[in-house]
């Protein structure tokens, strides 16, 4: 079972890879829309990738209002 920190780290690494930015430029409390310069549909694309990685299903509404990696990690963690 992953810890919340491990989940967060994996999300940051996947986000960095997907949007071709250096992992070091991302922090858990970052607003991912701003840091990654992405729109809501690109955020949904990231969510699909995270679902495949963690082998879970996250309804779209779980992401509503979520803008930072840490909160996203908590939502994912609760379904692991």
């Amino acid at each position, binding site marked *: 079972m992953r810890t919340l920190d491990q989940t967060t780290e994996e999300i940051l690494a996947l986000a960095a890879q997907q949007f071709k930015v250096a992992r070091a430029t991302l922090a858990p409390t970052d607003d991912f829309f701003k840091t990654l310069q992405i729109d809501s*549909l690109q955020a949904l*694309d990231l969510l699909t990738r995270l679902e495949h990685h963690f082998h879970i299903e996250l309804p*779209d509404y779980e992401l509503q209002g979520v803008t930072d990696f840490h909160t996203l990690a908590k939502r994912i963690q609760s379904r692991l």
Partner: protein
Amino acid sequence: MIDLRNYNSLGAVLRAAVESWPQEICLIEADRERESARLTYSEFDKLSQQRASALQEEGFGAGSRAAILMMNQSKWLISAYAVFLRGGVLVPLDYKLLANEQIQLLRHSKAEMLFTEFHIWRAVSEADNFGQLKLKRIIVTDASANADLMGAIRWEDFRAEGTAEFVARERGDVACIVYSSGTGGRPKGCMLTHDNYLEQCVALTSLFPFRPGVRYLSILPTNHAIDFMVGFIGPFVCGATVVHLRTLRPEYIREAFTRYHITYMSLVPLALKNLERGLRQRIAESPAHRRLLLRLLTGINRALTKNRPRPRLSRFLLPDIHRAFGGELLAFFIGGAFTEPATLQFFYDLGIPVANGYGCTEAGTAITLNDLHPFRADTVGKPLPGMEVRIVNADAEGIGEVAVRSRTVMSHYLEEPEMTAETIRDGWLYTGDLGRFEPAGHLQLLGRKRNMIVTAEGKNIYPEDIENAFDSLPVKDFCVFAENFLWPRNELSGEKLVLVLHPETDRPIPSSVLEEAAARNRALVPYKRVSDYLAWDRDFPRTASMKIKREALAEEIRARLGRDSLVAI
């Protein structure tokens, strides 16, 4: 297609639809790779009749109001038809609003019934103003077996056997209350009549007739005027099929094209841009010789489709591209916000026409639409049949406010006679948008007269609605403006909001205040955020009742400062 002239209400015309094509598929619902529902018109009718009978038992009848607060799914349309069968007024609400905003609109609309999804209902029940909600009955879908329903009843239990008594309505009766925007002080509830919808449907289907076998992919929220018309009423009166996806991820949307052989889809510029980005990436990753071949074939397609789309020819010339879109796509519809001409042209050159249109909820959906004969990337098309459009107070270049008169224009704003009188004058709806007609009769949009923006997601944002996010900020005064309202320009791309701050003292704005403003801004949903702030050193002009005189303030700012005074927040 059903001859709409013979019917007076949406209920009557939908009833004719289910009788006309009982065995055709009207709805498909999918969640990721799984198909969760597939209904014929006959099955759709049966499920709706059960809910209409239950509504009847509750005493729901002519003029009673029922709200729907759901993501796109089959039960949205089943509930809507049940409401119309009983002669009710439908209040479609935006599931993306915050729960306290949804409660505010539920109260404002005076809806007595609510059809919603369990997760939305749970969020509503946790809102601060939940206690203010007065509903007779709440029906929830998708609730797990042991869920605490908090006073609601399950969709599965809200049913009664037999055929509901059909309640006839007149054309002038209100069919829907649609909130075009605004949850701040003055929600704008557009009262749209059965006549408005039936006339709009006639106009749209005259350009793009659906038929049995056509599959429409519904991804815009059905509460939105476009999807309600093009993803519900339009396909149903023609016996077509509507496909709903419970997961609106770009990956699953792309898959839906090939799985369901989609014919049409409506979308907003943000989604079109996302598709363009994906396509361009795929093209860039292909070998050099394939890219060269694609460029050559795209050029041939462009030349051969100059005057009109030729779908079969385009599919023959560019098979890989068209296979990725299911091979049967005829067109995308786009509206609700500004779309870059280059993006429209990109798709057209590949043989995928994007019918660019313009409209507003107050006008019953679309006012103009490009009929693709020929395709134009630089306009929003010609007025639809039945629409009179004129340019008011045109300047030397022919640019002025767009006004429209037609049977599709709403009756009024709910409980807002003054706002109605400002918006509809002598039968003309003043849109607040600036445009001009070019020689071929196409409308070009070139800016806004109003202090508002429209995002790439098609959301209308009024600065007044987000100002409460900055309440009690430690400044003397603050105000939010659309950047293009402060400094007008004849363009609609890249619209953004600006926070004007007047500090307590003559010194520069303290960093603590800016940090607080930035934090408040981050708490807003992304599409409502302001982009920049502007430091202003004078008192705001105010009315006798201390309301900010926005136009006067904008004029003062315009006279003394330019766009270069803006600082990113």
